[in-house]
């Protein structure tokens, strides 16, 4: 436990446990499974965002568990329309607020946060087009993907964000199958390729980091994307008590690195001081990886390491004075 606290101190800045908001805007009594990290993530996200927030939610676990009429867990205005169009609906909400402020029908000085919320299926697969449109148009919306690496609401079907080698009901492990056979789609990098001012990855195992990233994304003018790695004990086959630890292991093994891309500059949020742990430590906590043979794990390990190395290089490259002078300033500081 003490190790976790030390880890947190390394990268949590604005918010610390002492001043973390006490208010809850994602209320108790929802129907999530025990140990549901996405539900926990939403609780933190709304703590950070506060009451002046409109949430646009995709169809999926979090919509289902939080809104069985006449009950609701949402202490802020919340709208669910369909599966693939969170970014589209959020674009409309943002445009409406913008024009109503301009026309004096809303107080122009009142800041209203708009948060789009969708799972990995609603983001990496069916909602990717709408997301790309929203990011390209640079609507002042924070889009948050809670990534539990499969279609959990419909019963653990594989998505393009399902981790390589994971067994799901549509990518089952078998004699001729290792489970999910291709590399996890990296939506955070896709988002960054839209040159939006802020992209980050986060995980509710590191709540202060998550909350600070949400705060930062809401303070920055323009579109922001946060990819939140959110373990699903039910779908991943781990005890519900393990959700936080599994998230931590994903970060510590480099399976899911935490980083920010702020105005084109990459910054890794947490570099494990003793180096990355072997991915077996993460894999062995979950039933979905149980079938993987040693040689497959080794290959995945190689790719995880390579991905991490690439991240280090990106960080190194983009944090130079030359990069800032030649790209960041002319690109982000020039207002057309």
């Amino acid at each position: 436990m003490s190790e976790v606290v030390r880890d947190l101190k390394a990268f949590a800045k604005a918010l610390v446990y002492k001043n973390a908001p006490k208010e809850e805007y994602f209320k108790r009594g929802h129907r999530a499974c025990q140990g549901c990290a996405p539900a926990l993530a939403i609780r933190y996200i709304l703590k950070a965002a506060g009451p002046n927030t409109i949430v646009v939610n995709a169809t999926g676990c979090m919509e289902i568990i939080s809104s069985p009429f006449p009950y609701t867990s949402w202490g802020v205005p919340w709208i669910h329309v369909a599966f693939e169009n969170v970014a589209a609906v959020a674009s409309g909400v943002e445009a409406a607020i913008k024009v109503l402020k301009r026309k004096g029908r809303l107080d122009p000085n009142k800041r209203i946060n708009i948060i789009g919320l969708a799972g990995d299926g609603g983001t990496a697969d069916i909602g990717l087009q709408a997301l790309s449109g929203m990011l390209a148009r640079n609507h002042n919306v924070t889009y948050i993907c809670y990534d539990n690496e499969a279609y959990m609401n419909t019963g653990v079907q594989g998505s393009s964000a399902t981790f390589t080698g994971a067994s799901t009901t549509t990518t089952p492990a078998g004699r001729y199958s290792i489970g999910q056979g291709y590399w996890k789609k990296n939506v955070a990098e896709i988002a960054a390729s839209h040159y939006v001012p802020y992209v980050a990855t986060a995980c509710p195992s590191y709540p202060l980091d998550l909350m600070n990233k949400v705060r930062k994304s809401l303070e920055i003018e323009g579109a922001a994307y946060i990819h939140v790695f959110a373990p699903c004990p039910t779908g991943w086959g781990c005890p519900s008590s393990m959700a936080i630890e599994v998230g931590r292991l994903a970060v510590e093994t480099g399976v899911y690195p935490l980083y920010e891309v702020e105005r084109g500059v990459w910054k890794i949020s947490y570099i494990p001081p003793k180096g990355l742990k072997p991915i077996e430590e993460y894999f062995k906590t979950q039933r979905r990886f149980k079938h993987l043979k040693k040689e497959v794990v080794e290959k995945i390990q190689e790719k995880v390491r390579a991905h991490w190395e690439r991240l280090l290089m990106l960080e190194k490259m983009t944090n130079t004075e030359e990069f800032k002078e030649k790209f960041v300033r002319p690109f982000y500081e020039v207002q057309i």
Partner: protein
Amino acid sequence: MSQKMYKNGGVVKMAKKVGIEAAIAIAEAAALADVDVVSAYPITPQTHIVEHLAHLVADGILNAEFITVESEHTALSAALGASLTGARTFTSTSAQGLALMNEIVYITSSMRAPVVMALANRALSAPINIWNDHSDVMSVRDTGWISIFANNAQEAYDLTFMAFKIGEHPDVLLPVMINFDGFILTHVIEPVVLFGKEDVEGFLPPYDHPYKLDPDRPVTMGPVGLPEIYTEVKKQQDVAIRSSRSVIDAVFKEFAERFGRKYSAVETYAIDDAEVVLVTQGSVTDAACFVVDEMRKRGKKWGVVEIRLWRPFPFDDVGSALTSGKIKCVVVLDRAISFGGPAGIVMSEVRSALYHVPNRPIVIGVTSGLGGRDIMFEDYVRMFELGEEALRTGKEPEMVTIIGVRE
């Protein structure tokens, strides 16, 4: 906002008659309504509408947010979001665009968002065909939108403007679709009386949805409807659209009183002494009336009945119009096909409207003008003659006759 003369685009000062494309007239009607958010995607033949709106926004004539979305699915999704945030919202599409939005078409009415959509009616693929028929509007017949047909540019302009007042009425809160025929209307220049802002002062109240996304009054929209509640929600929706009829009539009445142009749920032409009438929707109505005028010179007692208001369906008006006077045979012109079903979609509705009427007239169906094929003078004559033939033989065929099809 600067007042420019029409030639530069934008809101005119005083009502004036100009030669104008119907698509541009519709855009002008949305601008006249001071729409807050426009969200639309290019598709032929609708595109001129949103192009014109984009110009009005770009030139600062219309103070609105124009969202250049990446698909029609997003166009309507964004419109829905904007509408429920408290913005007056307009979108426009055709055929494939409407088909792509279909999921959200249903949700928009179910979530009671009074979005106004101009639907430039176009044939559905395949084969891909950009020209006019009514297969697009018929595909969304049961989605819970108020759906109204315009027959010419002036009507397209007037009805688009009225659509906001109808849909946004607190007793209605439903989306409204204004149908106008692709190319036949969208791209045709006709004389239209455009209003100035002062002319319509007070006609359209400001938009204020009673339940909007407002952090001061948090509401949950679009929750899960379990089996215990879903039926009741759908019943409410049906009651809402049926009840909208009184508001539609009241808006038509107020418009007629203030501006002199009368609109009705069902329009009739020369039916007082007619034995055979043709039932129409959209721009074919004016053409059919012309045919009736010509053929009356040759002694034919024919008339035209147009079902302008498609949803909510005006059962009583259709029933009384088609059983009035000397009408013995009703020929219903369909511009789309229900494959493997009753074939004539409008025909089957007309039949059902007359089912309980004693001594009801014979109802037969014709289909014509699919995918932009012109309906010629002789085609209309043929339709009426089929009616006369049915009267002579006393036969009321189940199936429609496709006029002019090569077999």
